[in-house]
Structure formats: structure tokens, C-alpha cells
């Protein structure tokens, strides 16, 4: 029964989107985590999504989504001259994470909308199944 697959598919999407929301909240929480060297500084992290192909070929109708991994952003860190800061290095520089707050907010909205859509899909599938079970009653 293919309607049951919808719960697997949408469930995998919920999982993936919640990982994405998680990384976004980590990035936003650490947007101002200052450190005194490039090695210790927090870098923005993002999940990489990939489809789950159960079957080979294009005719596989149910394709879920999985998180292949989390990658750290390779953008250069922000370096600021602030000799008064307790974490400043010998030259008086502090290092700020390469988190782009505007980008993260857009990511957050996109992730929560996608999450919402998949919950709605699951609700519709549930309704379709419940009505199917009630045939002839």
C-alpha cells in the first residue's frame, strides 16, 4: 500500500528539516562567539541534503531525503581590531565567526515552512488512509 510510504517519505523530510533548524540555531547562537585565533573560532555549519533512492533508475516512486553530512562554511572569518578585548591576540585582533545572520534567518524560515508542509502531507495521507479503512461502514 503506497499510502503508508508517505509516512516514511515525509518523516525523513521532517528529520532532515529539523537537522537544518538545529544547525541554524547553533549558527545563530554562536554568531558572536569571539575567540583569539582562527583555529578556535566557530564556523557556520550547514547540512547537505540528498535523496534516498531505494531502487535503481528513475521509476522509483517513493524518494525520501537524508542528511549526507554537515559541512563547515569555508568563508573567511571576520577579523577585528579590538585591543581592549580580553580575548585579543598579541597584535590586538579578535576573530568572529563567519555566520551570516541574514542568511541564517532565511534558512530558518525556509526550514520551518518545509517542515510545516510535510506535516500537512502526513495529515492528508492519514485522512486518506482512515477513509479507506472505513469503506462500506
Amino acid at each position, binding site marked *: *500500500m*503506497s*499510502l503508508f510510504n*508517505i509516512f516514511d517519505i515525509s518523516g525523513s523530510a521532517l528529520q532532515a528539516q529539523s537537522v537544518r533548524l538545529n544547525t541554524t540555531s547553533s549558527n545563530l547562537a554562536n554568531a558572536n562567539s569571539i575567540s583569539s585565533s582562527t583555529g578556535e573560532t566557530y564556523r557556520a555549519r550547514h547540512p547537505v*541534503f540528498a*535523496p534516498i533512492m531505494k531502487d535503481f533508475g528513475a521509476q522509483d516512486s*517513493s*524518494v525520501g531525503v537524508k542528511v549526507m553530512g554537515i559541512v563547515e562554511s569555508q568563508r573567511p572569518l571576520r577579523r577585528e581590531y579590538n585591543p581592549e578585548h580580553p580575548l585579543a591576540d598579541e597584535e590586538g585582533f579578535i576573530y568572529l565567526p563567519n555566520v551570516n545572520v541574514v542568511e541564517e534567518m532565511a534558512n530558518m524560515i525556509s526550514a520551518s515552512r518545509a517542515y510545516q508542509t510535510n506535516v500537512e*502531507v502526513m495529515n492528508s495521507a492519514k485522512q486518506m488512509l482512515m477513509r479507506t479503512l472505513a469503506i462500506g461502514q
Partner: protein
Amino acid sequence: MPFSFDSYLGVHEPALYIRAKRADVLASNLANVDTPNFKARDIDFNAALNAVTSGQTASMPRATHTNHIQPESFISGYELQYRTPYQTSLDGNTVEHQVEVAAFSDNAMRYLASLRIISGKFNTLRTAIKGQ
């Protein structure tokens, strides 16, 4: 004349089957709305229903040996097709949220409609059997 459920339920039984498959495909599209390079797919309902009801599988290869691989779609008679996006995106993803949501709700409503009709047919039968 023997009674046949197949002819009694008519087109609605294969319709339900294809609708359920299509819901599956559309849910996959919606799940992969943010997956890079994912291509949205859909089932042409009319073509699939025609293929199933007319039993036309002439263009499909036939398995003449038990070891022949027979993809599921060849058995059921529908074919998945790629959707042409209205607006392309930079990451190669062709899923358009609004299109897929609209198609999914439309498909769900039509599924429920077919279901209601089948349900009605069973109730008719039951009334006929009880005779009251």
C-alpha cells in the same frame, strides 16, 4: 450472469490505485524541496488510467523468463515523468512548492471522491442483500 466486483466498481478501483501512487510521488517531491539537483516527477493520471483500463501494455517489454527484471512501473502500467519548472533554481532543483502542494491537495480530494463513490456502491449492495 456472474456478478463481478471489478465491473461493478468500474473505473474507481484502478483510479484509487493510481491516485495513491501519485500521492506517493508528490510527497517525495515535497520531501525533497530543498535537495540540490532533485528533479520533481509526476504521473500523468489520464494516461495511466487509460493504460490500466485498456490493459494496454504493448509498448512495455514482457518478461518471458523468471529471471527477467520487471520494474514495478511496467507491471502497474504507469510511467513517471519529469516536471518542467516554471522558474529554474540555481541548485538544479525543479520542485516548486506551490505547484506540488496544489497537486497534492487536488490528488487527495479526488482520491476521497473515488473512495466515497466506492463506499456508496458497497452500501447499495448491502441494501440489496438485506432487502429492507
